[in-house]
C-alpha cells in the first residue's frame, strides 16, 4: 500500500463517519416524515388486513394470517424507507447544490456511495424496528433462522439504498424521484408476496411473480421467521448479492463519470 493511501485512510474514515452522522441527524430532524408515517401505515395494515380481514382468511402456509404477513410488512417498510432515504437525501443535495461540498472534498467516490448507503440502511432498519415492535403488539413473532433474518434484511436494505442512489443520480426533478417508488417499487412490493403466498396464484401469474426481485427478498426474510418460503432461499441470496455488487459498481461508475452531477 502506498504512503498516500495509508495517509488518506484516517481522514477518509472521518469523512465516512461524517456522512453517516449527517444522514442520522437528517432522519431524526425530520422524524415526522421519516419515522411516524411508516408506523401509522403498518398499524393500519395490522388492524385491517391482519386482524379484521385476516380472521376470515384463516391460516396461510400453516401460520395465522397475521403471523404470515408480519415479516412481509416489515420487509416492505425496510425496502421503501431505505430507497426513500437515499433518493430524497441525495437528490435534495443535488437540487440544493450542497452535493458540491462532497464533490470538491478529497473523499473517494466509493466512500460517498457507502456513506449514503449507510444512511439508507440506518433508516430502513430504524423503521423496520419500529414496525417490528408494532407487529409484536398484534402477534407473536417467532424466529426460526435469526442469521437469515438479519442477512436478508441487511442485503435488501443495501440493494434498495443503492437503487435509490441510482435514481437520485439520474433524476432531474422531483417528479423523477417519485416516479419509480410510485409506479415500480410499490406495485412490485405489493405483488411480491407480502400479503399472500404465490401458490394461491394461477400458474402463469406464479411464473410472472418469479421475475419480481422483491419476491425473493420477502420470501428469504419470511423463511428466517417462519421457515416457509415461496422460492429457493439460496437463489434469493444469490440474487441479492448480485444486485448489491451490480448496483454498487454502477453507483461508483456514475459518480466517477459525473453523470447527473458534473457537466
Amino acid at each position, binding site marked *: 500500500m502506498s504512503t498516500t493511501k495509508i495517509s488518506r485512510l484516517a481522514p477518509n474514515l472521518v469523512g465516512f463517519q461524517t456522512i453517516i452522522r449527517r444522514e442520522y441527524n437528517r432522519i431524526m430532524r425530520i422524524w415526522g416524515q421519516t419515522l411516524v408515517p411508516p408506523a401509522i401505515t403498518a398499524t393500519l395494515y395490522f388492524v385491517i388486513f391482519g386482524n379484521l380481514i385476516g380472521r376470515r382468511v384463516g391460516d396461510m402456509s400453516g401460520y395465522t394470517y397475521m403471523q404470515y404477513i408480519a415479516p412481509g410488512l416489515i420487509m416492505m417498510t425496510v425496502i421503501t424507507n431505505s430507497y426513500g432515504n437515499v433518493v430524497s437525501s441525495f437528490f435534495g443535495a443535488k437540487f440544493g447544490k450542497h452535493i458540491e*461540498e462532497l464533490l470538491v472534498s*478529497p473523499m473517494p467516490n466509493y466512500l460517498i456511495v457507502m456513506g449514503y448507503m449507510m444512511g439508507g440502511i440506518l433508516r430502513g432498519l430504524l423503521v423496520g424496528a419500529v414496525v417490528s415492535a408494532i407487529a409484536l403488539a398484534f402477534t407473536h413473532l417467532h424466529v426460526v433462522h435469526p442469521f437469515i433474518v438479519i442477512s436478508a434484511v441487511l442485503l435488501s436494505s443495501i440493494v434498495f439504498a443503492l437503487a435509490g442512489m441510482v435514481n437520485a443520480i439520474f433524476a432531474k426533478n422531483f417528479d423523477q424521484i417519485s416516479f419509480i417508488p410510485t409506479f415500480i417499487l410499490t406495485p412490485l412490493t405489493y405483488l411480491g408476496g407480502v400479503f399472500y403466498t404465490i401458490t394461491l396464484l394461477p400458474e402463469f401469474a406464479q411464473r410472472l411473480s418469479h421475475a419480481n426481485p422483491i419476491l425473493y427478498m420477502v420470501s428469504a426474510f419470511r423463511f428466517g421467521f417462519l421457515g416457509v418460503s415461496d422460492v429457493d432461499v439460496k437463489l434469493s441470496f444469490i440474487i441479492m448479492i448480485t444486485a448489491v455488487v451490480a448496483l454498487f459498481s454502477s453507483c461508483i461508475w456514475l459518480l466517477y463519470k459525473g453523470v447527473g452531477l458534473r457537466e
Partner: protein
Amino acid sequence: MKALSLKGLTKTYKNGVQALKGIDLDVEEGDFFALLGPNGAGKTTAIGIVMSLVNKSGGKVHVFDHDIDTELAAAKACIGLVPQEVNFNMFETVSTILLNQAGFYGMPRHVAHDRLEKYLHKLQLWEKRNAVARGLSGGMKRRLMIVRALLHEPRLLILDEPTAGVDIEVRRSMWEFIREVNAAGTTIILTTHYLEEAETLCRNVAIINQGRIIENERMGTLLRKLNVETFILNLRNPIVTAPVMIDHKITLADDHTLEVEISREQSINNVFAHLTANGVEVMSMRNKANRLEELFLDMVERGNNTNKQAV
C-alpha cells in the same frame, strides 16, 4: 512551486459550446492572482474543472504538482473554494455546515471545533453559529462560505466572485481578511466583477475572453499599458463652454465639471497651466473609471472585434 498550472485546458459542453479553447496558466505559490473576464468568458468553467465539478475535454491541471488525473484526492486537499452561488444546506445550522465540511476533509472533530471558533470570530459570525443558514443575510452567507473554504487551511484558496451582492463595508472587511490570509502564505485566486477589488488586492492578473487567455501579466505591467486616462475635474466656479486644447480632449460634463483625456506621454501640468490661463480654478480631480476597468474593457472589446473580423 506552482500552486496551479493549467496546460492546454479545453472544455466543450454537450451543446457544442466551446467554453475553453486551450488555456495555459501558471499561478505561483503565495501569489494573489486575479482571473478576470466578462460573463461567459470561461472563468467559472476553468475553476469548475480544477475543483472537479466540471469534466475537462482536454489538457492538464496540476495543483501543487499533483496531477488531477492521477492524484485527485491530494490535489483537492490543497484547495478551498468559495463558489459563486450559495451551495450549503439551508436547513442546517452554521456550525453543522462547517463541522460536516471539516469532516469531509478528514479533520478530527476537536480540531474542527477549534478552527470553526477561530474563523467564525474572525469573520464576525460567531454569534450566528447556531442559526439556521436560510436565516442569514446575503453578506453572512458569503462569509460563511469563506469560513467553510478555510476550515481545512488550504494552500490555495479560490474565490469566485466572493463579494457579489455584498455591501461596501462588509466587502472592505472581507478584503482585509483575505489579505491577511494571503500574507500568512495561502495562494489566492480571485475572480471578480469589481475591478477596483482586483487592482487593489492582486499582484498578477490574467484576462480571459471567449475561452482564451488574452492577457497574463503582473498587475503593474498591465496597468502601464493603459495609454489614455480620463480625469474628472471639479471646478470652483461655473463655466459655459469647455476650454479648447489642441493636444487634449476636454469636454464639459456640467457647468462645474470637466472631463479631460490625458495620454501616458503627456504632462498633466500643461492642462492645469492652460486652465489657469483661462481663469478656470480646479478644486479636485479623480479618475473617471478605475484604471483596470478601462484597460479591461479596451482589451475585451479589441478581442471581440478581432474575433468578429476573423469570422
